[in-house]
């Protein structure tokens, strides 16, 4: 706090970091990659929505809003973020609780919250960022690697929101949020012994998970092993998506010429299954470009993670990055039939405002962690 008033000091010039991102928080390389990805996403959406210009414009607005939020976040000082973390986590947990009590449902699950004066949103989206921040906040209070007691408390922090989201029920999101918390622990240097026993515990919990799963969730898992087992029900989506991808071949059927998507054989073609449209219309080449784009974003974000000059920033950035990548992997894995169908959108490409905005806010946080803070670094 003392340093904030130290602006007139002559040594400021020498403290000024050389890197652009360290100076302004914004990383131009990552920025260009994100813009390219969203541009590609809007073009695909145009085709996948059946040339629905209105929908494309709405998604474009979502992108702009998210983009603005991201840029705005880069100006927030990371110590403020650090200090606000416990409060935001508490708010997010309370909102999750209230969803269970007063939430509105869609397709048999209560996920949405209608708050007066606010747009309808899913508190679980907020938790996606609040939880890793909270775990990172908690673990960095003491030197890393974390002590066993801190790990235990961190596990409780993870278990609480994951449990609340799982009973909405939204199994996909709860698993991903659990993963984001786990990534923090992993990056914080969780001992391999503990990691190993955790994996063993997870495997042991699978049968238990199976018994508490809803029927539709179990059917989705089953169709993973044999998509033809329920060709008109849960297997339909996967089979049609695989058909779309496979029939795309190397160079695809051409923009807006994918028969699976255009003739509506492909379900949810503008949201969760949009990657099948890319695969069908642009083929393996298109998929390679898309995945390369994601890989570059991943790589750049990991580089930025390593560069962050404080453990809190590194843990948070790393978790955001890895979670982002897990989204990509789960989505493409589900569409291409190597994972069960869970409702996970393709990051920054699938239609949907909440997802785009929260992902970009995540990247905003990541960039904010880049800003060199003389107060902190100078200490």
């Amino acid at each position, binding site marked *: 706090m003392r340093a904030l008033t130290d602006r007139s000091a002559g040594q400021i010039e020498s403290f000024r970091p050389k890197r652009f991102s360290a100076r302004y928080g914004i990383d131009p390389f990552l920025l260009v990659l994100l813009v390219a990805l969203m541009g590609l996403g809007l073009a695909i959406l145009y085709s996948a929505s059946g040339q629905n210009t209105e929908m494309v414009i709405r998604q474009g607005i979502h992108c702009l809003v998210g983009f603005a939020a991201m840029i705005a976040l880069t100006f927030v000082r990371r110590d403020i973020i650090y200090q606000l973390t416990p409060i935001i986590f508490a708010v997010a947990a309370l909102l999750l609780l209230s969803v269970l009590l007063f939430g509105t449902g869609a397709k048999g699950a209560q996920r949405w919250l209608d708050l007066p004066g606010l747009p309808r949103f899913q508190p679980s989206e907020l938790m996606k960022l609040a939880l890793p921040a909270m775990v990172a906040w908690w673990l960095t209070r003491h030197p890393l690697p974390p002590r066993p007691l801190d790990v235990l408390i961190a596990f409780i922090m993870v278990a609480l929101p994951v449990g609340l989201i799982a009973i909405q029920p939204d199994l996909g999101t709860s698993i991903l949020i659990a993963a984001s918390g786990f990534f923090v622990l992993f990056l*914080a240097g969780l001992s391999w012994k503990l990691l190993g026993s955790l994996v063993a515990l997870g495997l042991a919990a699978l049968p238990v998970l199976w018994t508490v799963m809803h029927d539709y969730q179990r059917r989705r898992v089953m169709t993973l092993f044999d998509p033809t087992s329920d060709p008109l029900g849960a297997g339909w989506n996967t089979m049609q998506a695989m058909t779309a991808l*496979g029939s795309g071949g190397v160079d695809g059927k051409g923009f807006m010429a994918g028969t699976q998507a255009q*003739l509506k054989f492909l379900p949810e073609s503008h949201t969760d299954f949009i990657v099948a449209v890319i695969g069908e219309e642009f083929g393996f080449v298109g998929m390679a470009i898309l995945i390369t784009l994601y*890989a570059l974003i991943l790589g750049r974000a990991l580089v930025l993670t390593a560069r962050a000059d404080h453990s809190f920033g590194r843990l948070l950035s790393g978790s955001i990055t890895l979670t982002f990548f897990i989204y990509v992997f789960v989505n493409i894995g589900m569409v291409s039939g190597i994972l069960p169908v869970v409702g996970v959108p393709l990051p920054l490409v699938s239609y949907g405002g909440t997802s785009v905005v929260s992902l970009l806010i995540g990247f905003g946080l990541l960039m904010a962690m880049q800003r060199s803070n003389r107060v902190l670094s100078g200490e």
Partner: protein
Amino acid sequence: MQYNHPRTERILTTQRVIIASLGCLALLILVFGRLVWLQIIEHDRFVTASERNRLQVVPVAPPRGLIRDRQGILLADNRPELRLVMIPEESAELTTVLDAIDKRIGLTGDERAQFYNRLQSRRRPYDQVVVKTQLSDQDAAIIAVEGHRFPELQFDATPRREYSFGHLTAHAVGYLGRINSNELQNVPETRYAATDVYGKLGVERAHELTLHGNVGLERVEANARGRIMRVMSRDDPTPGTDLTIHLDIGLQAKAYEILNGRRGAIVAMDPKTGGILALVSQPTFDANQFTRGISSSAYQALQSDLDLPLFNRALQGQYPPGSTIKPMLGLVGLDLGVVKWSDRIQDPGFFQLPGMERRYRDWKRWGHGTVDLAKAVIESCDTYFYEMAVESGIDRLSPAMGLFGFGQTVGQDVLGDGSGVLPSRAWKRAQHRQAWFPGETVIAGIGQGYWTTTPIQLAMATTALANRGTLMAPQFVQGLDPVSRTIDLATPADWERMAREMERVLHSPGGTAAGAGKDAAYRMAGKTGTAQVAGLGQDEEYDAENTPEHLRDHALFVGFAPATEPSLVLAIILENAGSGGSQAAPVFRAMSDYWVLERQQGALPPDMAWVRRIDAQLQRVDDQ
């Protein structure tokens, strides 16, 4: 915040980031591997799956062949019909939509019931269900204007069979009805993939495959809901073959005009070809009712009508031939050597078997006096033929009469006709498990007893007389090979002689049809018949006045005109009308005059306005 070991922490977290990157790399390789498998290795399989998804082969029904009469007048046509159809899966509230239709263009209870029937019958999801047929352009416009409010409703233009003279030709041309599962089993299934109608009777039935043509195929792109987006390619259907039939619509109309509502049947044939010039069964019905979709109440009415309008008397009516077969019996007797033209008998007005009490009476109570074969034909003497039949014996008589086609269906493209009964010892044993009695031979001599024939059999048998020995099988459609049978007589000149005696039936004072033949401008030949419906006791008098109508005698007549070089053969039956000479013979005269004089033996076209009027009059009778 504490920053105790920034350096060790940095090393630790950087290590972990690198490990995580390797994990991500592994997952990326997994995804790439999957994509290589899907998009490159298994590409062909998924292309097939995708094509199978979107491409559908839709059969296209061929246009059905038209039917024309011998002068080229269109009898059966295909006309586009506008129908209102619904995709019930897209409708939230069926009754509301039906009510809305009712309010705008009217929907009868019958139409509603039929809609629900169709809805419940086996159908694929998203198939259209017919709501209302025969929409006028105006009705269609009323619904179309509000089309956005009824997304489940569509219009559908399908060709519908239209019979130009629905009443006149119903029994001859037949009609189309919805194809049933039995019929589907008898046709090549692929050819009928798009067809839902089938010839039910008459020419439509007999020439079903010829008229039908062959199915076409359309390869279409359909979306996931089965709605067709565009046509990729099309193999046009092969249209059904148009048929020209021997039928003469003028002669057909004339027959109905003369019958004037009386129950009966008339078959007219061209003796040279065997072509059926007219095939009339009265009462008739409107064949168009069936192609338009007959309401159940209308069908009930047709079925329960005591006069049996759906019953084809010309083909299925089995009547005792009575005296109409006497010329043929006479020729059989001559051929067998049982009688000679010069043989005479004394007719006391009855016949008795030797040593038996029972008297077989002549229609003329006091007898015909001295009778030879010629007089027996002209005056229709029963006694002469009783005696001749007994002398011939049923075992010789029956096979000889079989040569004229009695006892069998007529074959060719005439379907569903009755075989009648040609009485014989074997037939009786098979049918009744009884021995043949001599008395049954006696009455067989005048075409009574077990003997029954159909009108079309009588007409066919009469062609042998008209052609002096060549029997022509009846046929509907022109261009078929004529089917004939030559009946050899020991003395071929007997054919001509018998034709001359039949001429005298109409043109000599004693002839039973002399009244009908009076003042004719040309000569014709024929034979009357009066067939008993109810058996009479030994001493009973037939009293037409006091006999219930359905037990009164049938009036029959067979004949040909002109007597030499005939162009028309007729067989006429008027049910319960009385004597053949007074009732059926005038019908023959009128038909013959129309054909020979007015139409110049078919050379002149009929008066179409008059034909339409007759058809319309039958409609009015229908409506009563």
